[in-house]
């Protein structure tokens, strides 16, 4: 046994497994790709408006810097810009939510849709829409309807947080989260919330067809017909969630060897879990209340990023803010280029992509899963 010596070679702080891409490099690549997708998304649509100069003038007019474009063109630019802003915010929020949940639960299979947080947020949003949109007078909430987007988000957040705590509490035994229990609880909660959601829809369908249509569109996940208020909401929710990151990033790295181990190193594990679950629920709730249930962004993005840059959350979580929009806006752009728009909603596309991806993950990890 050698004696301690300050002459011993100092380890590098970032020393990790070999063949990882530096986070800065990946961040720069993702930012460039995202910029290209944003520009393309502003140019592509059913209307023939692809001239970048005119689109630029339309965007300038939105900010009060230039004269508005003539006729419907200004409206088209504004519609596309809001859609892009919403997609960026929703993609970032879902990916961040997934990254945080995977960190807290220490499992690559955790994501807001799989453990029921998205469904919880969706139920909260649906109840919010139903009560504020259709039955406000019944509940004596006439005065509240003016703030309904904010209140719908608040309902979504409350339900997302409630589901996150319920799932965590049910899956925790002796201070340790059991992964099989977590996934089974997620299935049960998803099924229960799905049933409640169906009941809410049935209630709306019986009396209010327009309301039912709005709720069903929400459930499928859509980026159509969003307003600047929606864009502001998702970005505000995302900003609050991002503000929690400095208090959880390094701490979640220490969770990797188990919660008890992190506690022994001085991590206030209760506070970190509360912050991370709260931020993940808020981000998922903001995304769901704006765009409905768009599954699997929160599963796919953190997982792929982890493969490329490694598990350190200080790199992973900020990169989710770029990777999520690249996937969601990229998929939305692809569908509009290939099919011209209306046939497949982004929520449907992400489910078609994400379902097989989840199965692939399960198959790849079969040996590990069998030992659970």
């Amino acid at each position, binding site marked *: 046994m050698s004696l301690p010596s300050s002459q011993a070679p100092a*380890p590098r702080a970032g020393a990790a497994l070999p063949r990882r891409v530096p986070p800065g490099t990946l961040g720069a690549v993702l930012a460039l790709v995202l910029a290209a997708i944003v520009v393309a998304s502003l140019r592509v649509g059913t209307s023939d408006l692809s001239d970048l100069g005119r689109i630029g003038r339309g965007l300038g007019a939105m900010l009060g810097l230039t004269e508005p474009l003539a006729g419907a063109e200004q409206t088209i630019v504004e519609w596309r810009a809001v859609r892009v802003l919403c997609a960026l915010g929703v993609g970032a929020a879902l990916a961040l939510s997934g990254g945080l949940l995977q960190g807290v639960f220490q499992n690559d299979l955790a994501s807001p849709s799989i453990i029921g947080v998205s469904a919880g947020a969706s139920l909260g949003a649906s109840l919010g829409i139903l009560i504020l949109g259709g039955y406000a007078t019944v509940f004596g909430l006439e005065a509240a309807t003016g703030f309904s987007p904010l209140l719908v988000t608040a309902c979504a957040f409350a339900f997302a947080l409630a589901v996150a705590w319920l799932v965590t509490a049910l899956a925790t035994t002796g201070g340790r989260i059991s992964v099989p229990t977590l996934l089974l609880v997620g299935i049960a909660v998803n099924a229960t919330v799905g049933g409640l959601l169906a009941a809410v829809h049935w209630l709306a369908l019986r009396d209010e067809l327009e309301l039912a249509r709005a709720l069903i569109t929400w459930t499928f996940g859509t980026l159509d017909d969003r307003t600047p208020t929606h864009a502001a909401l998702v970005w505000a929710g995302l900003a609050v969630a991002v503000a929690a990151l400095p208090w959880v990033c390094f701490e979640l790295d220490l969770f990797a*060897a188990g919660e008890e181990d992190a506690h022994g190193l*001085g991590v206030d594990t209760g506070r970190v879990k509360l912050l991370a679950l709260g931020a993940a629920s808020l981000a998922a709730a903001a995304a769901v209340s704006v765009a409905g249930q768009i599954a699997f962004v929160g599963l796919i993005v953190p997982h792929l990023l982890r493969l490329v840059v490694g598990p350190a959350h200080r790199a992973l979580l900020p990169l989710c803010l770029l990777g999520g929009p690249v996937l969601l806006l990229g998929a939305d752009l692809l569908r509009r280029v290939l099919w011209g728009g209306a046939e497949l909603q982004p929520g449907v596309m992400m489910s078609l992509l994400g379902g097989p991806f989840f199965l692939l993950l399960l198959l790849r990890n079969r040996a590990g899963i069998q030992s659970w």
Partner: protein
Amino acid sequence: MTLAARALVHDYPGPLRAVDGVDLDLAAGELAAIIGPNGAGKSTLLKLCCGLLAPSGGEVSLDGTPLGAIAPRERARRVAFVPQSLAAVPEVAVAHFVLGGRYGHLRRWSRSTPGDLAVVADAMAAADVAELGERPLARVSGGQLQRVLIARALAQQASSLLVDEPTSSLDPEHQLAIFALLERLAGEGRAVAVVTHDLNLASQFASRIVVLQDGCIVASATPDEVLRAEVLEPVYGAHFRYGRLPARGGGERPFVLPWSG
């Protein structure tokens, strides 16, 4: 007194009383070995002493301050715990893992300093894992992992070090090396407690042996006073052969050998 436990009780759900009214003092410069049969409450006692478990009754204090009143990061700077194993092995290199021991010393928003890295390097050298720095933690052997865990605890620079069965998967050379390291750390002024099933390592290196049975301390004395038939055999329900061998620092130390019949 560095670490003091008073009337410590811990009940697991069941209910199962794992620790039952333990008083334990651990002084700076002391290496105390905690022994006892399986299920005696040894690991639970260590976890209570470092705040990983909350006591059902009684209190642990560090230098007179109740453990519950000390913030987690401050606690990690004052008492370090070396677990038997990890719940999961993180996908990081060994040096990065050991750097986790500096968490209690890092200021929020700041990255590790050259000083932190020097502490990590010293800790890894002391635990004989300096050459493993770049190796993924998942690719070290069981024995190497034990030494890495000790290195990480050393990086905490805590005045009390609580070690749970550090030699259970080590070969004899490394068993001796780990206990020599713990003895040296105690000699440098730390309070060290180690849970072990190896009575002879405890005899060679510990200044005091604490015997735990059914959650209670039944003996706490020097190896000469503890490694005797009247103490060991009622506790373990086994027979031993007893002898003495020359000790490293002069004099003799007792040794025992479990022996059927």
